């Protein structure tokens, strides 16, 4: 292995991100901690699954990885070099996003063909992007006959395929997918996942894959990081993470997965009715207010990451599985 193979394709080092939010006319603005001391490494060719509660900071982390949002603390590296140090054109050639919301992420005044070919115009001026654009649309299962359509004429799933085609056309090394298949039916989802698998093998694509669909993450990821309220609470290779989760939040998450078998009752998460509160964090473990196992020690001081075999878990009670 060459030296380059030991440099992560993408690395977040102790990243923190805070938003100031107004709480009404007469109150002082509060600080909302969206990311807290988040460290992640993705090696070349690896796929990292990123899962966690809605609002836990996944999309914020994605925006930080893409250099679209500057972290308030910590640093971000792309191929060993700080993300801000890359010239823009170089950066977008290396790392491309597929965003969560296929409605707002596509410019409504551009036709599908132009949207998809756009990244090529930036790099390869002069050559006709048409053939590659059509090939890419076809590969993601988008009807090429609609290349002249505007986003408003497309269904949610069709728009998401356009977003994926656009991200892949310039053959980036790192692909950051934020919920790329949530708008797709399961058959098109299978096509898109198969496409990502193919491209990963063919181009050695490095991927960060954010999803609420745990079965998809389990199918695609090599390693999985679980987040709760802006922090990483568990990380492990995919097999042990799903087979023997250590953190109680990971367990609750896996326990709430719906299976496609009729007649099963809705799962009980065991987390109570309180919700994660990003505006008021206690001094201790962020999950303690909802944790069925929490004790006084958990509430008193921040809980560091501990290694348990192949798992890293931020929990005082994460004993052997």
């Amino acid at each position, binding site marked *: 292995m060459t030296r380059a193979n030991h440099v992560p394709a993408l690395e977040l080092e102790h990243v923190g991100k805070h938003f100031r939010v107004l709480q009404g006319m007469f109150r002082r603005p509060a600080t909302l901690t969206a990311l807290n001391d988040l460290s992640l490494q993705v090696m070349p060719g690896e796929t990292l699954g990123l*899962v966690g509660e809605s609002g836990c900071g996944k999309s914020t982390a994605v925006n930080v990885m893409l250099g679209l949002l500057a972290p308030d603390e910590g640093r971000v590296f792309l191929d060993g070099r700080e993300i801000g140090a890359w010239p823009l054109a170089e950066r977008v050639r290396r790392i491309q996003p597929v965003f969560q919301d296929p409605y*707002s992420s596509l410019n409504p005044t551009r036709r599908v063909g132009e949207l998809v070919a756009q990244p090529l115009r930036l790099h390869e001026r002069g050559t006709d992007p048409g053939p590659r654009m059509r090939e890419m649309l076809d590969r993601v299962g988008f009807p090429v006959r609609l290349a002249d359509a505007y986003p408003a004429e497309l269904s949610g799933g069709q728009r998401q395929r356009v977003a994926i085609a656009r991200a892949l056309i310039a053959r980036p090394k790192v692909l950051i997918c934020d919920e790329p298949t949530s708008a797709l039916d399961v058959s098109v989802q299978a096509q898109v996942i198969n496409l990502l698998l193919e491209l990963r093998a063919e181009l050695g694509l490095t991927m960060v894959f954010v999803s*609420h669909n745990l079965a998809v993450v389990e199918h695609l990821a090599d390693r999985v990081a679980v987040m709760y309220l802006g922090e990483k609470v568990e990380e492990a290779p995919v097999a042990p993470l799903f087979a023997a989760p250590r953190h109680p939040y990971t367990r609750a998450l896996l326990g709430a997965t*719906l299976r*496609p078998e009729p007649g099963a009752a*809705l799962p009980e998460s065991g987390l109570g009715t309180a919700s994660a509160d990003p505006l008021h964090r206690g001094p201790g473990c962020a999950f303690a207010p909802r944790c069925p196992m929490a004790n006084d020690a958990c509430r008193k001081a921040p809980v560091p990451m501990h290694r348990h075999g192949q798992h890293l878990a931020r929990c005082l009670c994460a004993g052997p599985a």
Partner: protein
Amino acid sequence: MTLLDLQDLHVAIPTERGLLRAVRGVDLRLAAGETLCLVGESGCGKSLTAMTLMGLGPKTAQTRSGRFTLLGQEMAGRGRAAWKTLRGRGLSMIFQDPMTSLNPTLTVGRQLTEGVIHTEGLTRRAAEARAIALLERVGIARAGQRLGQYPHQFSGGQRQRLMIAMALMSEPKFLIADEPTTALDVTIQAQILSLLAGLQRDLGLGLLLITHDLGVVAAIADRVAVMYAGRIVEEGSASRIFRRPAHPYTAGLMAAIPVPGRTPRGTPLPAIPGRVPGLIEPIAGCAFCERCARGETLCAARPPSDVALPDGRVECHFPAVEIVQ
């Protein structure tokens, strides 16, 4: 009580490439307290059908139908104004596109309360109290403090929950939910589904749920309608459709669900080969025929007729059922 009785809905949209026959004869029926899940290929016309039910289809669309009653009122052939009295007064929708219902320039508190202040004459305080209670039930902490924020300050899933709360503000009898939980993690999804199930039990809410998540369908559907290329190709009880899908498209969908342990990790998932047909040229036979393993010459030539099933129907020349006489 029948909340919806729709027969033979057609929606066609003029496009630069010709007239797009996006919805081609859809029948839907829903009773109070019932959950009907509408599933199907991306682009098959689910949202268009739902928007038409709300009186919000594209302005240029050509719409016609047979019988069309909504909350007891005849709607066939009536103009957009007829829906004004139903929306916010019994009929409500969670939109797939957040921008349809969330205005980026107004605080979420304002957006949540505006409707009921107008239709029910609630005071701002009473409306805000209702909004806060609902936001807490959809899992948004310190809702009172977040009413003054704007939509972009919420995460994707939080925005989706704002829309759910907004749709429930008017205490609807009939809720159309278009992909309401796609941006939610599974624990919050379960919380939302129990909230909806509770409303059905307590208030007889009728739910038309459009979703790609067959786990959600399995958990809450009474009946399932499977749509393909603008038509409902199969309809039946949830328990039967999952165990014995009659239409080859339904069977293909079921097979494509990633189930851990069924397909080895990192290997291709079974997807239905091929593409949906364009709906500008008329289709002579079965719209699924080119992608179908059971396809025969007959299928390309003649549209499949309706086959009655004990719990519903299927339209296919060669359904995987013993045909009931």
